[in-house]
């Protein structure tokens, strides 16, 4: 038998070793489950957003190709109708105007659902056209600066970047009441950086971050996660908002189709 002191030491050591092994396994298992859970959540979110984009594309195609074509046909029929009385002529002209407005609105909705120009001409041109349209409304002034070539982002990732920028602009116009927005795109150390700032009412970042349910910010953050990007938001009530989005280089795989 060992001395009493040695017995205690060895006993403690044995117990500690076994408990340490169990604790170590617990931590390993916890980290494994945590990573698995994160991956599953990411996959679920990705699947939801991809399904949403596919559904938008389908709706845009249906609107443009089916409803738009039928309304164009109706417009042609009405335009070619023979005028009877001056009142009937006026009615026909009014109906044609309404149909033109309707067709224009359908094109707009269809474009919002699936910005074809993004796939055909790239992000920079799509954004330039979007900002021109918004500037033309006279409600807002958007200044767009870029010192880069067309971002060589993967085709399926471009739509997320486009939606993030649109959602931020939408938030600035709708919720912040901004009258001026500055957008800059640049490439810094193999990362695309997008800086967006507005002169709106701003918000308390912590409060908004705590209560993300149903806000456009939640949608933005989901897409930021898909892009494995980082989004920095700086704001204070009454001081406008500044967003800095940084996209890592591992999505630079292929040039978008022109």
């Amino acid at each position, binding site marked *: *038998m*060992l001395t009493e002191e040695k*017995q205690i030491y*060895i*006993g403690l050591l*044995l*117990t500690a070793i*076994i*408990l340490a*092994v*169990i604790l170590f*396994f*617990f931590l390993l*298992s*916890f980290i*494994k*489950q*945590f990573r*698995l*859970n994160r991956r599953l959540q990411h996959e679920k979110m990705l699947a939801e957003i991809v399904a949403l984009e596919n559904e938008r594309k389908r709706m845009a195609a249906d609107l443009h190709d089916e409803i738009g074509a039928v309304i164009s046909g109706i417009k042609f029929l009405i335009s070619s109708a023979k005028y009877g009385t001056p009142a009937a002529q006026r009615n026909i002209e009014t109906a044609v105007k309404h149909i033109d407005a309707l067709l224009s609105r359908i094109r707009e909705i269809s474009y919002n659902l699936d910005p074809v120009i993004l796939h055909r001409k790239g992000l920079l041109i799509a954004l330039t056209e979007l900002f021109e349209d918004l500037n033309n409304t006279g409600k807002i002034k958007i200044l767009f600066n870029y010192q880069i070539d067309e971002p060589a982002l993967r085709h399926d990732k471009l739509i997320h970047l486009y939606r993030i920028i649109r959602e931020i602009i939408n938030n600035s116009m709708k919720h912040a009441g901004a009258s001026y927005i500055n957008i800059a795109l640049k490439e810094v150390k193999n990362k695309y950086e997008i800086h967006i700032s507005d002169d709106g009412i701003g918000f308390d970042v912590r409060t908004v971050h705590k209560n993300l349910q149903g806000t456009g910010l939640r949608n933005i953050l989901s897409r930021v996660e898909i892009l494995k990007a980082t989004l920095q938001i700086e704001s204070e009530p009454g001081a406008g908002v500044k967003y800095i989005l940084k996209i890592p280089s591992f999505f630079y795989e292929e040039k978008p189709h022109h």
Partner: protein
Amino acid sequence: MHTYLLTDLFSYSIAIAGVMALFKFKNSPSEFRPFILLIWFGLLNEVISTVMDYVVVCNAVNSNIYVLAEYFFILWFFKNMETASVKAFYIMLAAGMMVWCLDNLVLHTLQTTNSLFRIFSGLVIVFLSVEYLNLLFFSRVHHLACNSGFLICTAFIIFFSYKAVFEVYFVLRHFWSDAFYINIFHVLVYVNIFTNLIFAFAMLCLPKKNKFILVYS
């Protein structure tokens, strides 16, 4: 003699869960069946141990066989709970049987209480329980305290962690005095009662079997 009887009596605390299992077996989901069989088998082993103690004054043979059966039932339970895949189940079972044979047939005999397999099985069961608990934590299950899987695995971790430590001390049996071993055995008895009470509560919380209705019947 009095302590011995009391210890013997305490070991029958498994009977509470065993009796409850009689009422629960029919309506319990199939994944919990190995656990119920484990409880009944544990109770049967206690009866055999009592008889063996009085007849041949040693219950080592049935205990050595019981620990292998216990290991099998618990592995089967974890396979049903999807903590261990079918492949992992067979690998762990084969490894367990090899360690059991090595411990009880090669290194020692069935007539002695052997610790090697008990340490191995104890650690495997604790690891599987930890894995299941972590799985449960991330699956956002409500009312964990009334979740049978959670209760069973918690009880497994408490009992088998202590059992692994206890058996390691028994491997080094010449290091300490007899009084020390008697004391740590008494602690094991109380840990066993506590575990059996958790098993009884888990039996109460056992979910009911899913009922399926065929729409065309």
